[in-house]
């Protein structure tokens, strides 16, 4: 018997500063003091070395009872805090992912799988022994033991363990909804699954590694920024180190503690301390939207996207087309046409068929509303491209205009062309015309219309403001595609799209230097998903699509791509803004520390003490404290990202320069002065 286990729904979101997360983060902040960890971050590594050295001076001072033990202690303590605060920022950012990973690990418990051999005999084996290519059978109520594709049968599956969504989904053999994930539960029916992942490489394993950040590598932009910060650190190291001989020339000796304090204040600790937290939080924000990014690089690339390929169906329009009008052919009574349309669709369970029934009823259908006894339904096939009903005698059909005309001719009728104007008009307006025929006669045309998703026009406007070009991908003919493109406000379209033309489009866009993002779910989307710079696969899609993509949307919502792009932009913006803020901060720190350093050699330099800080010690300490506290103060900003509204680059730039550049110059003057006032009120200096 397979052990039954209750499955929790994966918690989608938790508060930014959850008590459990904060508790764990505080502990981690101390663990991360390990120099082997710190060296990954050159700026904070320098601060840690500074903390060790100043602590050494403090110990020397208390043992020799000389010097300024109190001052050295205060500087050493605040330098340690600076490192700890930066560690805390990173630990909090990781915290939410770790909580998710803990949950997912519980989901990943070993189960007993029913493995099938070639002969179809079932052997019970541990799920840990399954290899890619194995076949397993899963019955209602059982956990799916491993990732794979359904090769036989169809079932409803509860995927809430992975997606957090409680509504069950259908997984069936063939088509684009064949992928199943290990750890999810079959609710009804039974399926045969071909395992696609070896143990340790499953979707769940990858997901755990991703949310936990275990495999987190620095993204290209993070590396570039780290180099810039390291370069600035070296510049300040030179400026501060040479200040020691310069002071000797001026007739004063600077204590190493003061020089270290100045160095730590000048090097970009604010961004250096928050850089990794910003990146982790960016990936986490994507995760909160229920999108699983396979790398931080993918999220970053999303911010750079120039061209967005959007599938028409499901993204721009609602999946189903709806009938909006039924037009009779000349000489046919409107009531008759409606009646025939109604009868043809009564047994038709497709959404289009049902919408025709509904429209006919709204039109006030009279007369016989039921199919006669013995009527048989002729379902739609890709070959005939029509469906209909054979009654005792009359046959009725509805379908693609050319298919219907052919059918009428085959029946021996000579179809009139009177309706061709209407057919053309419907197609031109973006609708789909369905001709309606009874025996040898065309009796009318049904207008099926694509229904745009709400708010799409506004969304495309936003994307355009951000400089992103949108391209609609559709299998429709160019006429219909153009009409829908016009109605939805999308920039461009690719009509009669095939996997090949889609691939060509991506390559063409990339060839002219653009970055392309797309969504996809089918196996034939896989090459395009792999080629695109940002490929988002639907979780409902095939394994091939999920493997090729660099993101998987667990909700299978194609419009999610737009949100991912916005998160990517916000991530880069946060980095840039905090870098600017960090560098701009330095101006005030010079005005605090320089006059303090030369208070004895050049008392006239007190003119530069424009903040009127009380004593030299208080000035230096206030700058160091401000430098540490600003990291803590900015953690929420680093984790949430800077305020983001989709606008053009120049508007965004103007605002961010004002807030983080100009604000970055002014803020520390106020902050350092306030700290100085508090320190002197408390008689601490």
């Amino acid at each position, binding site marked *: 018997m397979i052990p039954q286990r209750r499955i929790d729904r994966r918690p989608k979101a938790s508060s930014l500063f959850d008590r459990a997360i904060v508790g764990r983060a505080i502990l981690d902040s101390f663990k991360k003091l390990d120099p082997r960890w710190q060296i990954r971050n050159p700026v904070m590594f320098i601060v840690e070395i500074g903390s060790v050295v100043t602590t050494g001076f403090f110990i020397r001072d208390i043992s020799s009872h000389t010097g300024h033990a109190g001052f050295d202690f205060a500087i050493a303590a605040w330098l340690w805090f600076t490192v700890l605060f930066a560690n805390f920022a990173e630990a909090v950012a990781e915290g939410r992912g770790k909580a998710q990973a803990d949950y997912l690990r519980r989901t990943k418990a070993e189960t007993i799988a029913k493995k099938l051999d070639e002969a179809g005999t079932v052997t019970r084996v541990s799920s840990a022994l399954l290899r890619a290519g194995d076949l397993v059978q899963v019955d209602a109520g059982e956990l799916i033991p491993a990732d794979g594709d359904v090769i036989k049968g169809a079932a409803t599956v509860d995927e809430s363990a992975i997606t957090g969504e409680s509504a069950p989904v259908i997984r069936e053999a063939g088509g684009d909804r064949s992928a199943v994930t290990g750890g999810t539960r079959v609710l009804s029916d039974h399926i045969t699954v071909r395992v696609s992942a070896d143990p340790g490489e499953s979707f769940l394993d990858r997901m755990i590694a991703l949310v936990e950040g275990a495999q987190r590598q620095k993204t*290209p*932009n993070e590396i*570039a*920024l780290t*180099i*810039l910060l390291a*370069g600035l650190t*070296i*510049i*300040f190291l*030179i*400026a501060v*180190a*040479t*200040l*020691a*001989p*310069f002071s*000797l020339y*001026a007739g004063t000796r600077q204590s190493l503690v003061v020089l270290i304090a100045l160095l730590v204040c*000048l090097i970009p600790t604010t961004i250096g301390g928050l850089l990794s937290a910003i990146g982790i939080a960016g990936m986490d924000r994507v995760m909160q939207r229920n999108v699983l990014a396979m790398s931080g690089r993918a999220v*970053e690339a999303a*911010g*750079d996207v*120039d061209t967005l390929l959007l599938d028409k169906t499901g993204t721009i329009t609602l999946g189903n087309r709806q009938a909006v009008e039924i037009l009779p052919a000349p000489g046919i009574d409107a009531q008759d046409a409606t009646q025939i349309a109604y009868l043809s669709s009564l047994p038709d369970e497709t959404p289009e068929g049902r919408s025709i029934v509904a429209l006919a009823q709204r039109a006030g259908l009279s007369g016989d509303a039921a199919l006669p006894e013995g009527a048989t339904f002729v379902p739609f096939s890709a070959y005939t491209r029509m469906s209909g009903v054979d009654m005792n005698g009359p046959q009725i059909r509805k379908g693609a205009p050319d298919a219907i005309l052919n059918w009428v001719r085959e029946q021996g009728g000579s179809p009139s062309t009177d309706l061709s104007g209407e057919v053309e008009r419907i197609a031109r307006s973006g609708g789909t015309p369905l001709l309606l025929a009874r025996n040898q006669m065309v009796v009318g045309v049904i207008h099926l219309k694509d229904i745009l998703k709400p708010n799409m026009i506004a969304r495309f406007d936003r994307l*355009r403001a*951000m*400089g*992103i070009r949108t391209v609609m991908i559709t299998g429709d003919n160019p006429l219909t595609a153009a009409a829908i493109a016009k109605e939805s406000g999308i920039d461009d379209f690719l009509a009669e799209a095939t996997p090949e033309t889609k691939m060509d489009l991506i390559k063409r866009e990339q060839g*002219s*230097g*653009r970055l392309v993002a797309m969504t996809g779910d089918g196996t034939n989307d896989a090459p395009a998903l792999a080629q695109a710079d940002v490929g988002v696969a639907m979780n409902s899609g095939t394994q091939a699509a999920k493997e090729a993509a660099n993101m998987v949307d667990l909700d299978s919502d194609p419009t999610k791509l737009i949100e991912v792009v916005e998160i*990517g*932009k*916000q991530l*880069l*913006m946060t*980095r*840039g*803004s905090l*870098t*600017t803020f960090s*560098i701009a901060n*330095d*101006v005030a720190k*010079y005005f605090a520390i*320089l006059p303090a350093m*030369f208070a004895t050699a*050049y008392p*006239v*330099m007190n003119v*530069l003490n424009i903040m009127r800080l009380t004593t030299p010690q208080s000035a230096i300490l206030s700058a160091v404290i401000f430098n540490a506290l600003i990291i803590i103060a900015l953690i929420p900003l680093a984790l949430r990202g800077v305020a*983001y509204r989709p606008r*053009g*680059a*120049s508007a*965004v*730039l103007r605002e961010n*320069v004002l807030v983080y*550049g100009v604000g970055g110059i002014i803020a520390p003057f106020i902050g350092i002065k306030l700290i100085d006032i508090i320190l002197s009120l408390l008689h601490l200096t």
Partner: protein
Amino acid sequence: MTLIGWIQAVVLFLAVLVFVKPLGGFMARVFNGERNFLSPILRPVERAIYRLGGINEDEEMAWYTYLFAVLAFSFVGLAWLYLLLRTQQWLPLNPQRFAAMSPDLAWNTAVSFMTNTNWQFYSGESTVSYFSQMAGLAWHNFVSAAAGIALAIALIRGIARTTLKTLGNFWVDLTRACLYILLPISIVGCLILVMQGVPQNFHSYETAKSVQGFSQQITGGPMASQEVIKELGTNGGGFVNANSASPNENPTPFSDFFELWLILAIGAALTYTYGKMVKDTRQGWALFIAMSILFFGGLLVVYWAEAAGNPAIHQLGIAGANMEGKEVRFGLAASTLWANTTTATSCGAVNAMHDSFTALGGLIPLVNMQLGEIIFGGVGSGLYAKLMFVVLTVFIAGLMVGRTPEFLGKKIERREVTFAILSILITPLLVLVPTAVAVLIPSGLATLGNTGPHGFSEILYAFTSTNANNGSAFAGLGPNLFYNLTTGANMLFGRFAEVIPVLALAGALAGKKAAPESAGTFTTYSPIFVGLLIGTILIVGALTFLPADALGPIVEHLLNLKGSTFQ
């Protein structure tokens, strides 16, 4: 400050501005190898040079080949000049029978001219023969300037090209810069200067009797021809020690104005060449505007400080502006305009003594150079140094629009940031570290003319000027073995340590794809970008040099306010 003083500055600026487009456009044509109005005469000469040198002008170089060509050319030239200065006693055109230069001074001088610095620890009129002046110093005045222009063109090509590996041919760029740009302007300029009274002869000293009855020796020599390229190529090495303060090098108010124009002309026009070559002249104008704002900002301070005079002297009851070390015939405005121009470019020619400026007045030339010679900068070197700051600004500010930073459509990634920050790192490294060494050791302090903060400024200025390849001297600091060797090394590294990352960046950019511009792109020609560029330059410069400057000119000014001076 007077209205007339400001009018001089504005007229100079307008005279430069008028030529930005025609001269810049002409240079773009020359380096794109397009026909121009000089082609009928010069193209055959150009071809002949290539034939003689065995150069295939269609052969393009990758960045490291280009670098190797620049280095090989420069170091052969260095050896040639060193040899010339060490053997001039046996060579012709030496009417004054000057002896060979001492080895350390010859090294310092050779490096100085080869690197376009023209730092002068020697006095031209009493140590260098006419042959050495013409075949050695003037040669380098031309080719070091031409090499600077070639490097800037190589970087521009790197920016303009997409998915290519090459940056052009150094020999072709060098030849064209000399032949089409430097030589024609120099020939015309030389005649104008001769017209103004600058000597151009091979005579030995003339002896004259002054009104008071003293006997006076007047230097002659091929001065006008060297004067013009000294300014045009932002070299700055005077034929005589007094440089452009001497009435022979700079006899009239018009020659003063014309020489200032020559200093600025190419540096300013190259911004347009850049815009033209990247096919968006707005890009070039944005740089020109940023340069102009920094230029006038500096001028305002230095002019104000000199006009206000020294507060320490005011306290002795003597009112008025600071006229010490200035030529009365030029006056305050023209002297401060020159001081600002010569340091805003990497020229280094002077018409007044910067050492005698007030503390704040002396601070501006110092700061101009510390910013990295990017205001107009040296011919070519100013533009490429400026573009390194553009890359840095694009990277920091570009992130704020929510995209991987792009410069003209090309992503600024790891390699680009590395090279940009390396080129910017060099200035603090080569200015602050040698200064720190000099103030610690006896030989660094032995030849100091003053004590206290002013003495500190003299050392700081020397290393700032040599590193920036400016060559203007604060005076007060005498040559000795220590300074001859260290400033020589500093000039060498100041030039070539920057050239390497510049060309590497050019190579990296040339290989990239360029994304087309969209509403989401960070533009590098908007007013806000100009503001950001100036902000980045000032903040990086200030953060690096504020402590050092505070201990030199700034504290000196504060002490002057209290009445203290330094002997």
